[in-house]
């Protein structure tokens, strides 16, 4: 992964993550002795360009949410580097920062959560929810604060008259708008969207996705879009990273990844998406078994027990995550030999 930096101007990047690890101990017995590790994130390397949307996809338990939260230092990493290009301080190592230092960059990194029902405090009014980050960071007070909230509510398409209502009075889509307004209050550069539309109805999904796209254009935001819905990710992302059991298996520009994947897991994922077209009924590639457990992963390539192209080497050696084409990365021993099928047959 290190040689890719040669191709990209450092100033164009906003975030660079190298070999990020987040392990959780498995404890048991009376003295809570550690018996092993759940490797939720196990050596993830990626970079994010300014103003782009990087999709991060994978099945439940693959570590995509943990990766997102570790990048923001909402969780402490076990290892690896997280470098962030702060507009004031330049490149900083987030993994080395303490609480106080982090507070100087936090306003530039925000998160939008999946569930608009549990991520808003039911005892706070909309106004207080949106104001909280501004008040904590002493960014505004009094009438200035009032005006800022009015502005933010208008930005996300909410009527400012509703400022003194409580979250329960709003529908799912409206609540997600409140969450977005709160994330944007500090004028961040990087926003991690953690499944922002998966709890919403189809028609409301479209409203929120359009809003996120408009905001990105108007406010020059950079998104890491964590989701499991591949059609939503295709729609919104410039590049997509695919995760499997704590590791990245493929990373490429959206069209390349969807139409000419270079990892068998990506191929299986693409084939599994039900296409909204009754004239294109194809049987998905059968993936036997279940997603491996990050507490007890298989040897070699984690995907090998379910892979239909498996060979001897796959169970013995971990395939490196390498550039198979310019800016197209894959972790498969046979990435250059296999002829894989994309989302269209």
């Amino acid at each position, binding site marked *: 992964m290190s040689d890719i930096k040669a191709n990209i101007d450092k100033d164009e990047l906003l975030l660079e993550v190298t070999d990020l690890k987040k392990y959780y101990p498995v404890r048991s017995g009376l003295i809570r002795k550690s018996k092993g590790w759940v490797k939720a994130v196990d050596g993830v390397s990626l970079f994010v360009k300014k103003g782009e949307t990087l999709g991060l996809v994978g*099945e*439940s338990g693959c570590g995509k949410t943990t990766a997102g939260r570790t990048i923001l230092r909402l969780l402490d990493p076990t290892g690896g580097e997280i470098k962030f290009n702060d507009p004031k301080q330049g490149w900083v190592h987030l993994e080395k920062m303490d609480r106080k230092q982090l507070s100087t960059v936090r306003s530039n990194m925000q998160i939008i959560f999946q569930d608009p029902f549990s991520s808003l405090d039911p005892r706070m009014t909309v106004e207080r929810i949106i104001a909280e980050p501004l008040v904590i960071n002493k960014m505004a007070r009094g009438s200035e604060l009032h005006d800022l909230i009015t502005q933010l509510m208008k930005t996300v398409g909410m009527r400012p008259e509703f400022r003194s209502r409580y979250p329960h009075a709003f*529908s799912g*889509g409206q609540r997600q708008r409140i969450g977005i307004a709160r994330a944007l209050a500090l004028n961040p550069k990087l926003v991690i969207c953690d499944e922002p539309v998966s709890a919403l*109805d*189809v*028609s*409301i*999904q*479209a*409203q929120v*996705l*359009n809003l996120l*796209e408009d905001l990105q254009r108007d406010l020059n935001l950079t998104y890491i879009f964590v989701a*499991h819905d*591949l*059609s*939503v990710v*295709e*729609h919104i992302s410039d590049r997509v990273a695919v995760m499997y059991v704590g590791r990245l298996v493929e990373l490429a520009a959206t*069209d390349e990844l*969807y*139409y000419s994947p270079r990892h068998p897991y990506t191929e*299986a*994922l693409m*084939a*599994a*998406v*039900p*296409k*909204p*077209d*009754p*004239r*294109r*009924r194809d*049987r*998905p590639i*059968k*993936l036997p078994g*279940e*997603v491996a457990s990050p507490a007890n992963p298989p040897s070699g390539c984690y995907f090998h027990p379910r892979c239909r192209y498996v060979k001897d080497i796959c169970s013995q050696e971990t395939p490196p995550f390498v550039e198979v084409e310019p800016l197209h990365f894959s972790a498969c021993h046979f990435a250059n030999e296999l002829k894989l099928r*994309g*989302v*269209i047959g």
Partner: protein
Amino acid sequence: MNQIIGSVNESAASIFEGEEIILKVRDLHTYFYTDIGVARALNGVSFDIPRGKVMGMVGESGCGKSVTALSIMRMVTKPGRIVKGEITYYRKQKGQKESNTEIIEEIDLTKLKGMGPEMRSIRGAEMSMIFQEPMTSLNPSYTIGDQIMEAILLHQGVDKDEALKRAIDILNGVGMANPALVVKRYPHELSGGMRQRAMISLALSCTPSILFADEPTTALDVTTEAQILDLMRDLQTRISMTIVFITHNLGVVAQMCDYVTVMYLGRVVEQATVDDIYYNPKHPYTSALLRSIPHVGSRQKDRLQPISGVVPDPYSAIKGCPFHPRCPQVIRGKCDVDVPGLTMVGKSHTVRCFLHSDTVEVESDVRH
């Protein structure tokens, strides 16, 4: 019990040309009498379900998809009640297969007592249901085996050993690994995909004629979803079961269903073959729904076109067509005055919209 014995052909009169009908729903009203008012969940739902086919029911949350299934299963409980309408179930007599004279029994399910013996003999045995979240619909304090055996013991009159054997067979049939071990497991010991398979086994334990699948794959990952859909497709062809597939995932509908019923605010707005719904939709709501989703593999990066506004709450009564406040093609003075009637617009294609017909629905009075 309203029983009319007739031949297969007599019951075949339906909007679906050449299909035999297993269930006919007419003018179904289900209301919920709550403290804050009457929620009109179903406002005159009418549709047919063809035998041995997969019928998709789509619409946004709150449109009445699940309540329709629950009403048919007679599982609507207080404060909800079926206030009006007919649900005719065409029961094929089992075990009387003397060549051409299959006997079809007509039963109006609304006339039966929800918890009465007739309904209980139908529910679970001839009609069953799969729910979205298997963890909340399986009993956490019984093993998977006990739960499947319960239905078999209740409906099939076999002893415990035979029931256990059948339970293991069914689990095997749905592709569960190690079924002999799984019958001794509790729901929390299984993964999401395995739980959904257990739930399907439970629903299939008495080989029902109709299976209502209420968002059966929404909580699952795509690869697990693909496995479950594949399984349901196999079952459907193997035992020619009628499946009513309730979902808001238009991809799943396109892949799974033969026919589609589109619902909005307690009414059926369009019903047609799956091909007509996707390639020749007639109702503005159906078109809007299709335009609002990102199509995987379309290479289009155009803006999505959301449906403006939200589904109105079911407590408020909307005058005229319930979709008119959000409809881009609304005809003022018409759509906001009368409710359009359900009209045939093609072979096996009905729609409820003034753009296609001037028929007005005669609003029937519902006594509370």
